């Protein structure tokens, strides 16, 4: 794979260059080809890669090579810094409404991990002293309601359902009323998976949004998503104005370039990382770690950080 050897290739590309001078245009261009390949293999969107490479090239040309680094490492350092900056430099948490209940709405493609994530969020919030309520707004997928009920039971968080014969908009509205009555300070809406190009179903989400005005709309995105991640994120964002992204299935061995693509096209932060099927498998998201994962060079980077 291109990845495993990116560091080596960069070092190789610079092996002729012994002095510790400045990075020349030619050298940077050679290195950037390898970086470009690595990012593409990591599923970072093609256009995002192009823009990124242009930006990094501009910055790198003429930059002095640090005493402690080789020119190859110097390029990696710049690439990593820019990538981290693009990912967002700090963690962004979920915001709570000034007057409860805080309403969180999950959205995303089929199978992304929405229902599971509802349970995970319920678990975290409960641990932090909140009284969350999970709401079954997926009336389409076979046994979706039952799934949420099982999940809710596992984390000991109540689940509000009205069966599958009531519209999701009505369910959401009733759930909020229920939450107010029973002092649930966070309402988490599970919604059905849908394609970003499915106009009828996107309209449904808009109606839920209008009806209950969620504090946050969170796009749940599978970390293994390929080039199409930008289309998905752009559509969900333009229709719903999402507040952030939750990245799922990061426990796999994907490089997760989709994270960068989505961040670049929507500018919205990634708020959580899901790392397994268990309902405790959710973590805060660290943009810098994601950057080095996408680059596939954790070891090299930690060396450079020490330099």
């Amino acid at each position, binding site marked *: 794979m*291109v990845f495993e050897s990116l560091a080596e290739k960069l070092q190789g590309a610079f092996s002729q260059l012994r002095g510790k001078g400045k990075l020349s245009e030619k050298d940077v261009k050679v290195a950037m080809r390898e970086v470009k390949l690595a990012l593409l293999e990591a599923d970072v969107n093609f256009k995002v890669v192009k823009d990124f490479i242009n930006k990094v090239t501009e910055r790198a040309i003429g930059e002095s090579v640090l005493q402690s680094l080789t020119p190859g490492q110097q390029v990696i350092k710049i690439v990593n810094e820019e990538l981290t900056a693009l990912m967002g430099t700090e963690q962004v948490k979920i915001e709570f409404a000034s007057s409860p209940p805080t309403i969180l709405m999950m959205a995303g493609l089929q199978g992304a991990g929405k229902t599971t994530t509802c349970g995970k969020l319920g678990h975290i919030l409960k641990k932090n002293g909140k009284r969350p309520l999970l709401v079954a707004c997926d009336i389409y997928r076979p046994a979706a309601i039952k799934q949420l009920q099982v999940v809710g039971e596992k984390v000991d968080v109540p689940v509000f359902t009205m069966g599958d014969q009531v519209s999701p908009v009505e369910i959401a509205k009733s759930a909020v009323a229920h939450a107010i009555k029973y002092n649930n300070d966070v309402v988490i809406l599970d919604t059905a998976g849908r394609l970003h190009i499915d106009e009828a179903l996107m309209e449904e989400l808009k109606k839920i949004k209008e009806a209950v005005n969620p504090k946050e709309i969170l796009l749940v995105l599978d970390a293994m998503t*390929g080039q199409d991640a930008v289309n998905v994120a752009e559509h969900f964002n333009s229709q719903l104005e999402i507040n952030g992204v939750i990245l799922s299935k990061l426990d796999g061995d994907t490089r997760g370039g989709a994270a960068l693509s989505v961040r670049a096209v929507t500018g919205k932060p990634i708020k959580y990382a899901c790392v397994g099927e268990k309902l405790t498998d959710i973590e805060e998201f660290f943009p810098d770690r994601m950057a080095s994962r996408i680059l596939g060079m954790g070891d090299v980077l930690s060396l450079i950080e020490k330099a």
Partner: protein
Amino acid sequence: DKTRKGITDKIDDLFNSYGEIDDKLFDELEEILITADVGMQTTMTLIDLLKAELKVRKVKDVHEVKTVFKDVVEKMLTEKDNKPFSIEKTPTIIMVIGVNGVGKTTSIGKIAQKLKDDGNRVMIAAGDTFRAAAIEQLKVWGDRTGVPVVHQSEGSDPAAVVFDAIQSAKARKVDVLICDTAGRLHNKVNLMNELAKVFRVIEREYPEAEKEVLLVLDATTGQNAIQQAKVFNEAAQITGIVLTKLDGTAKGGVVLAIDSELDIPVKLIGVGEKVEDLQLFDAHDFVEALFN
């Protein structure tokens, strides 16, 4: 739809506006393939194949490049002897495997209906005993299709469920037994071992059955699908791929990479959530869609 049109326009631009076949043309072709998730390596392989073919056919006119390229890709997808999806011998046992959320259970519902319509006696085994409400989900599909579902309770041993299902399938003289499995990431060793255990039960209990092992891949998945195919293939000798969610805007181009690196044919495609949203894979249509 905007996205699709964008790409179509781009392709038409590409093949119509260039006066000559030059590097810029190949660069743009490269871009189209990359954005379809074909991956860098396979893209470069395909473009080399295209260049060679253009030389052989002495193509000079830009307008012919597209047709030649489609031929090249289609040839790559069809040159291995991949027989279409069909039940050739009974009894057959179909194992459906893949990572989380790709569409295994839904595809099983669709496949069950199709095989039943073809005149087979079909049975489903609820081998996912882990996922919340996986059994209930499969039972809904059983009701929809009128196909019996053999199951135990959540948390039971999947190998035991499959064991039971095989005995039941034998007793009821079932033609095709389809086994659902829990979604598992290929890098989880313990989960892959669990799968191996299920396969050992099948070897031991149902040696007379024809085996079909379908790996379900989500068309939205990027380059990780190659790794999924490799690792599952080592564990389970995949006989075919089911490529789901092709009703979205993703092209599923990564199956080209899988085809070029591994010898696994795509057999079925999923194009929606309804029982009828299953189609036999057609290389020609797939290549057309790659460009539309």
